[in-house]
């Protein structure tokens, strides 16, 4: 990759590099920096990095990737690794060491993306002056050599005077919507272009990728996400992201197709309270989230919940409502949830049934485990029947009935605006870049000694292998216009 930096050095800046005294330290620094700049602004390097990221992506889509957050938590990580161990066997530990279960968070991936981003910025900076010049201060006089060596060039001998020839060429090119610039220094120089702003499209498309990445970084730094916001039917929960806001779940419905059994609807009817007062109602569905300010509530998952009533020794009701059984026990995969009793701070873990055939906790039963505040020690464990008040410690616990909970994904992402803006520029930039080309044509009219003139036309665009190019069509038109007798 450094090969390019060596084979294509910058032109010397006028300073004699190979001075008799040999390279000084600063010369060396200069050379290293030059090399680095070349490395970063080299398209070859960018291409190699893109292919490397693609290769990592292939690995990342073939190897199971850990859900976000799992690998940060040592216990969750061990559990997750155990889950996938049957698939990867003895390789599990090795793959984990190589960060292959979190490729898109891995060091290698980050380095590649960072290098590509820097390379992208370097390339763009490298190109801006040139693009600026081509659009604002194009060279009109390109010298006679250009008309012999350009990829496409034509010479036409005309009998008109140079001024007449210019008028005809201008007429044809204006008719084709070219912008024209001309100078006259004995020879007439013509520059014509179309769609000059299209030259910026590719540049904008490249920079927009940086905008998208910026959005991702902003989202990661200032965003908020609670993917485990679970509310049971009848339960009201405060939203951490929005002080004073709380959400109550009225009802959760899941519907299935009677023939295929595939799901057709998940709907959570919610009521939204601000400082205790109802402000809104909405049914959250998979493609119909609820938005409050910058915070959005998405339908994510659902499951069984238990409606519980907890009273103290005096009979005062401490809690009455649903408790989502949103987790699973490690030992036997039973649905499990917890409730912190308001007032006392006691924690009750509720373990649900596995359904028919479960002899430990039968359908219609729930296992309650009562702990002291802070879960320091267990007070008691009991399997209780539905509707039957059971006393444990100082508390009377009743399992009223089974119900459902909904799992919402609560998210606030201030970076998403950058992402959409960048995406828009990305698509627009590429579409324009590939659909519209900045067309540039140069002309040169020289008077012939015996009257008449020679018109040279040239462009940098290469010949098309399968059809006439715009340049060829333009020249054909100009030839035709020159054939008609000059108006005198």
């Amino acid at each position: 990759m450094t090969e390019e930096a060596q084979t294509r050095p910058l032109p010397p800046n006028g300073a004699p590099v190979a001075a008799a005294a040999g390279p000084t330290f600063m010369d060396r620094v200069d050379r290293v920096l030059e090399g680095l700049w070349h490395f970063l602004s080299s398209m070859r390097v960018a291409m190699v990095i893109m292919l490397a990221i693609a290769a990592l992506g292939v690995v990342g889509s073939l190897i199971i990737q850990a859900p976000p957050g799992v690998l940060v938590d040592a216990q969750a990580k061990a559990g997750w690794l155990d889950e996938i161990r049957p698939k990867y066997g003895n390789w599990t530990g090795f793959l984990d060491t190589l960060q292959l279960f979190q490729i898109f968070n891995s060091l290698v991936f980050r380095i590649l993306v960072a290098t590509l981003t820097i390379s992208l910025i370097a390339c763009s900076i490298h190109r801006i002056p040139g693009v600026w010049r081509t659009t604002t201060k194009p060279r009109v006089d390109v010298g006679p050599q250009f008309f012999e060596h350009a990829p496409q060039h034509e010479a036409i001998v005309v009998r008109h005077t140079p001024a007449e020839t210019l008028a005809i060429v201008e007429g044809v090119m204006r008719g084709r919507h070219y912008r024209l610039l001309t100078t006259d220094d004995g020879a007439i120089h013509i520059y014509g272009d179309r769609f000059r702003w299209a030259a910026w499209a590719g540049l904008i498309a490249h920079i927009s990728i940086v905008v998208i990445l910026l959005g991702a970084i902003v989202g990661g730094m200032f965003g908020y996400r609670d993917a485990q916001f679970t509310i049971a039917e009848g339960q009201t929960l405060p939203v951490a992201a929005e002080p004073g806001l709380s959400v109550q779940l009225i009802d959760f419905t899941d519907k299935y197709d009677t023939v295929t059994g595939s799901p057709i609807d998940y709907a959570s009817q919610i009521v939204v309270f601000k400082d205790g007062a109802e402000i809104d109602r909405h049914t959250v569905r998979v493609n119909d989230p609820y938005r409050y300010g910058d915070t959005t509530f998405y339908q994510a998952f659902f499951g069984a919940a238990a409606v519980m009533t907890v009273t103290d020794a005096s009979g005062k009701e401490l809690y009455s409502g649903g408790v989502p059984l949103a987790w699973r026990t490690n030992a036997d995969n039973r649905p499990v949830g917890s409730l912190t009793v308001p007032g006392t701070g006691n924690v009750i873990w509720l373990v649900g049934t596995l359904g028919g055939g479960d002899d430990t906790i039968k359908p219609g039963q729930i296992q309650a485990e009562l702990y002291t505040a802070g879960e320091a020690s267990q007070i008691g464990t009991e399997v209780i029947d539905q509707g039957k008040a059971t006393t444990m410690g100082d508390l009377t616990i009743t399992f009223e009935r089974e119900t459902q909970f909904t799992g919402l994904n609560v998210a606030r992402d201030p970076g998403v605006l950058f992402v959409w803006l960048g995406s828009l520029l990305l698509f627009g930039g590429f579409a324009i870049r590939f659909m519209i080309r900045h067309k540039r044509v140069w002309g040169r009219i020289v008077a012939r000694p015996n009257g008449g003139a020679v018109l040279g036309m040239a462009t940098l665009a290469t010949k098309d292998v399968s059809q006439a190019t715009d340049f060829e069509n333009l020249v054909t038109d100009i030839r035709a216009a020159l054939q008609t007798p000059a108006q005198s």
Partner: protein
Amino acid sequence: MEKLSGYMFIAAMLSTGLATIFYLMYAVSGLRAARMQTAGMTMTTGSVSITSGPRTAAIGRYATMLGWLAVFTLLAALVARTVATGHGPFANMYEFSMAFAFGILLAYMLFERRYHQRILALIALPVALAMMLYANTIPPDIAPLVPALQNNLLLTVHVAVAIVAYGSFAIAFAAAALYLVQLFIAWTMNRDEPGGWGLPRLDVLDDIGYRAVIVGFPFLTATIILGAVWADTAWGSYWSWDPKETASLVTWFIYGAYLHARVMRGWRGKRAAVLLVIGFAATLFTYFGNLFFGGLHSYSGLG
């Protein structure tokens, strides 16, 4: 309507199959003509793309007609399917494969119209036919949409845009494959200069590949962006490194690398063609990915 769609689909398969045969006959006939010419006179190698007699031309015209017939019957099948289901024909692998085949066929026919290189059909049409035969193995039952897919606008636009991208990439693949085949033949026969046999010129194939990618690439970009918009609406996160998302990004990077490669010295031609083949492999990987790597896109209807 569902039945009509099925019949039209069968008609489309038949016409694609027939068209493939005609294109093959066209190629053989052109090859023979080219051979005779080489035998009879000194042929300027690689300068004529096809030397066709009247017979060859007639076969070619029939092939083209059959190709368009396939396009229109498949379009009819897709429209009828849309009417029957009430959503764009992109909700499961049956519908999506039909649509993919349609994308390839349409892209091919449009490129043929513009570049007159019928030989490309020898690769493009079998790919389309394979897609249809694959679709044919999937039960075409209409099931209601799962909640994640219940967004008619995004379902239609996201996948329709993907079809255009995939179709274009199939054409780029066909051009690249023909390019590499010619290099391979030249290499095995120890000839310095590839070309001849009535096959398209290498620079023409290189150009077609590029033209196809500059159509497909913005559309793939749009596919990914629309997918992100949809993911943000449905799941609350515009990017989750879901395997299908990742695979589409991989594809995007490969074609991005191709577009850069093509303007670099030494990368035009053979290496660019190799990248196009890899790119199409990635496209197919993205397309079939959800079947074997699960993830959020696993609602193929194949359980």
